[in-house]
């Protein structure tokens, strides 16, 4: 990270597990992240890589029956691991906020949007209901919703997905949090709206001065909007690098294969796509050694024996692969 950038998220060795004691299944196996103010750090990976669970763990919102542990989980300098749930609840929505993939599911379908705005604003900002109404209009203005008064009187089903996602972004940023976790924020939207919403997030990030964790499966999106990329596979970060470096010189065989496929699909001349054989392992059962080994064209006996650790190959560039250790 650039010198002088204030750190808003510092998480060390984050683990998420589920199940009762004795038969605990580990799902996220030690993720460490640092996000600076006005920086966007991406978590990319395919379904079942643990990227969404990692995002939820930062928010203290993992599903019932799961447990989260970390050496350190500092948001804006405050250690969330030492907090009780009521304390965490006061931080959530204020210092750390989240935008989800499907705004329709994030809103109550039977309440007018304005009502839901004022619930959240009175709670998170401690303002009166009438102040909340004024604030709601300002917030909608800030995300490019022009007819705020009418919109606030509507129910979620009366609006398009793009409009709702703008509203969710406005709501998430109401308290000007230190950190925003955006989990596939544009995946449910059409391409032309995706560009609009990502531009909006980038703009609001600057204005609010927050850091952002962008959870996405889309390498194209990440290339355009993230400063740093973390590639996840089977509950671990397998490669981390500044975005330009990651796309210019990826090292991990999984990153290499993913990028090659994405680029081949995007270039019209490709005759045969080089797909990765097989499919990812279940999150709770990554096998022994490197979880990618069964699909890796470079795998040797060594790969199934030891779990490779993230090690630096260049400034800010870490890779978890035995090949890069030589």
């Amino acid at each position: 990270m650039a010198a002088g950038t204030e750190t808003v998220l510092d998480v060390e060795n984050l683990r998420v597990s589920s199940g009762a004691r004795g038969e605990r299944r580990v799902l996220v196996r030690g993720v460490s992240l640092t996000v600076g103010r006005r920086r966007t750090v991406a978590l990319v990976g395919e379904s079942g890589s643990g990227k969404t669970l990692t995002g939820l763990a930062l928010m203290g919102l993992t599903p019932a029956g799961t447990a989260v542990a970390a050496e350190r989980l500092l948001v804006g300098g405050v250690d969330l691991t030492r907090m009780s749930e009521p304390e965490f609840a006061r931080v959530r929505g204020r210092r750390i906020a989240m935008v989800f993939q499907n705004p329709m599911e994030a809103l109550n379908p039977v309440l007018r949007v304005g009502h839901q705005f004022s619930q959240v604003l009175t709670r998170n900002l401690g303002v009166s209901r009438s102040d909340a109404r004024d604030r709601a209009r300002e917030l909608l203005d800030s995300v490019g919703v022009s007819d705020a008064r009418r919109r606030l009187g509507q129910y979620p089903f009366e609006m398009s997905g793009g409009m709702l996602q703008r509203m969710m972004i406005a709501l998430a940023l109401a308290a000007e949090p230190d950190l925003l976790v955006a989990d596939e924020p544009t995946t449910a939207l059409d391409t032309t709206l995706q560009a609009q919403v990502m531009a909006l997030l980038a703009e609001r990030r600057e204005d609010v001065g927050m850091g952002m964790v962008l959870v996405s499966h889309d390498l194209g999106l990440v290339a355009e909007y993230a400063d740093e990329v973390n590639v996840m596979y089977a509950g671990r970060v397998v490669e981390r690098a500044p975005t330009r470096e990651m796309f210019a010189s990826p090292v991990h065989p999984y990153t290499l294969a993913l990028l090659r496929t994405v680029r081949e699909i995007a270039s019209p001349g490709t005759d045969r796509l080089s797909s990765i054989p097989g499919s990812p392992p279940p999150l709770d059962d990554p096998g022994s050694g490197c979880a990618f080994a069964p699909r890796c064209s470079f795998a040797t006996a060594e790969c199934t024996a030891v779990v490779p650790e993230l090690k630096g190959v260049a400034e800010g560039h870490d890779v978890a692969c035995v090949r890069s250790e030589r």
Partner: protein
Amino acid sequence: MQARRDELPPSVDVRDLVVQFRVRAPGVGPRVVVRAVDGVSLRVGRGATVGLVGESGSGKSTFGRALLRLAPASGGSVRIEGEDVLGAGHRELRALRQRAQMVFQNPIGSLNTRMRVGRIVREPLDIQRIGDRVSRRARVRELLDQVGLPRDAEGRYPHELSGGQQQRIALARALASAPSLIICDEPVAALDVSIQAQVLEVLKDVQRATGVSYLFISHDLNVVRHLAHETYVMYLGGVVEHGPSASVFASPRHPYTRGLVAATPVADPERARRSPLLRGEIPSPMEVPPGCRFHTRCPFAEERCREEAPVLGETGDGGRVACHFWRELPREDPRAAPTRGGA
């Protein structure tokens, strides 16, 4: 062989298809007629792959469904291998559905989860009474091979298999009656990119082996450009551009196509970040704007666009575009196109 193919009627030939629904506006409003598909003509030649792209609400899925009368057509004509679909009686329709099949986005939603894979794939043969027991069994094995599923998949249930494998089952089932056309509606949209590539390769292999043609409906420009020989671009129920995929995506003419291309992310951080060319959202199909249906979002719209609907006209190089001003628009890379104030 090639000459023979050209003499045969195309896999599907659609002329001026109209699909409309009577719906009530949100809240309590009067019933209104929505034209989800408003006079679309499209042709898929034998053994060809034709892409149909557009955003949600463009009518592309409704169009695909109407070809098999899964959505009600109220005008125009559909011919599958030369035979009339819209006027077909019950028996003829059943026979026509052997020749044109459909594969959907969510394979698990379109497969009977209580059946084993072998039976799922065999069922169309049973229903259509194709072959006897022994030949059906052999055919199932052949189909599983063709889509790259392991032999032991036959005895398993769909939920035991991955999303990519489930989509292969759906494809094997669609292929069972040896159709001339498969309508693929977002077949890889729900799959991860590494699995997408596998399924796309299977689609190509199957086409090489059987000569089946595809109508490939998708919002994903990269996938369509990769797979489709020609592409139609739909917006609010109408086709705004059509041509060979290479030229539609490399030098799009219609401002909407240009906006779509510009908005598609590229996995290359060295490229300048795109500024969104298109503002706003696709209007509700209940409120299709007068004149050019795209004028409310077009950065280049002028007075004429608000009054007169453009027709799909030849561009002179194999493409067609429905825009009054396509010749006069700035020709630079749409990615670099500035955001301009419009209507």
